[in-house]
């Protein structure tokens, strides 16, 4: 999530047991009322902002099951991002790849990292639904304001980042982090 490019390399599909672990990590988070409400509302707001909803759902669990039924979950050893996602681009396109070099994806049996895995899965499922960081940040802000969250800061502005590719990449990361910040407020408690 939210890092530089995630170059696909040799991938291996996760076992059904590993997929169930990720499903449980996600379910634990969205069972939390604030977290579940935020995720559902952000997906609805994304639909309003963009006029698009590829899988016609506001449910993270439904999106998760879409990935399972389409291209699935895979593991790759990569240098950069923690995870990557494809979605919203055509039939059988929904796919999430996790980076086995990332601390909390290196051992899916490690219960110490269940929250972080769930949080990352939420982030990637937004991409599966067809939305990028620019849209995710704005939708999260609108929802957080509507749900009376505290600490809802100003959105990143492109003009405040350097010119060129580096500035554009930093702006994208800032939008990803903005979304993640509000997601964490909702999903790790003490959000409002």
């Amino acid at each position, binding site marked *: *999530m*939210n*890092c*530089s*490019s*995630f170059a*696909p390399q040799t991938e291996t599909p996760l076992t059904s047991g590993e997929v169930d672990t990720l499903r449980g990590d996600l379910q634990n988070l969205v069972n939390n009322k604030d977290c579940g409400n935020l995720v559902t509302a952000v997906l609805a707001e994304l639909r*309003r*902002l*963009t*006029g*698009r909803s590829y899988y016609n759902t506001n449910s993270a669990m439904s999106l998760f099951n879409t990935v399972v039924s389409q291209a699935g979950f895979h593991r790759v050893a990569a240098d950069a*991002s*923690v*995870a*990557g*996602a*494809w*979605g*919203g*681009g*055509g039939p059988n*396109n929904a796919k999430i790849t996790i980076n086995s070099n990332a601390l909390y994806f290196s051992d899916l049996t490690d219960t110490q990292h269940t929250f972080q895995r769930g949080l990352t899965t939420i*982030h*990637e499922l937004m*991409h599966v639904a*067809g*939305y*990028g*960081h*620019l*849209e995710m940040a*704005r939708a999260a802000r609108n929802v957080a304001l509507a749900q009376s969250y505290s600490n809802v800061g100003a959105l990143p*502005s*492109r*003009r405040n980042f350097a*010119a*060129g*590719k580096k*500035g*554009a*990449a930093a*702006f*994208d*990361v800032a939008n*990803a982090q903005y979304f993640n910040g509000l997601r964490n407020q909702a999903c790790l408690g003490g959000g409002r």
Partner: protein
Amino acid sequence: MNMTMPLLICLWLALTTSNAAPSKQWQDIVPLRSTCADVKRALGVERCGFPDSTYYLRHETVSISFSTSNAPCSAGQQQEPWNVPRGTVLEITVFLKKPLPLSEFRVDDGKYEKVTSDFLDEVTYNNSEEGISLVAVNEEVRSIIRFPASRDKHLRCHSVTCPN
């Protein structure tokens, strides 16, 4: 006189007009040049909210940032480092409900740089010279950001002109 035919024609016109291509009025709004009045005229909206306004239009959602300082570049007024009057447009973000083909933009002219992320269907094409970023998914432009172009750097507060 039979009124059915004219009514049908009117109905057909209404339906086809509503499905017409996006009018792209936001293209007339230029960062560091346009004002609230220009925004109202271009988008057909009634008000501007400072520092940001978001307009949910039929074909797109448009978000616009305005300068808010009455004394730009003066001490203590450095929230936005642009020497432009209050109410000037600083940045525009357009979320297109009907994506545009990437081929409509000359992204291969050497002025655009490609940026990718963990959303692997998406590519951002950044052109700082013109002050435009295009966010495309599978060769369709879905979002457009217009920000101050490099050539407008003289409008930055305390800009320094270096001798050649």
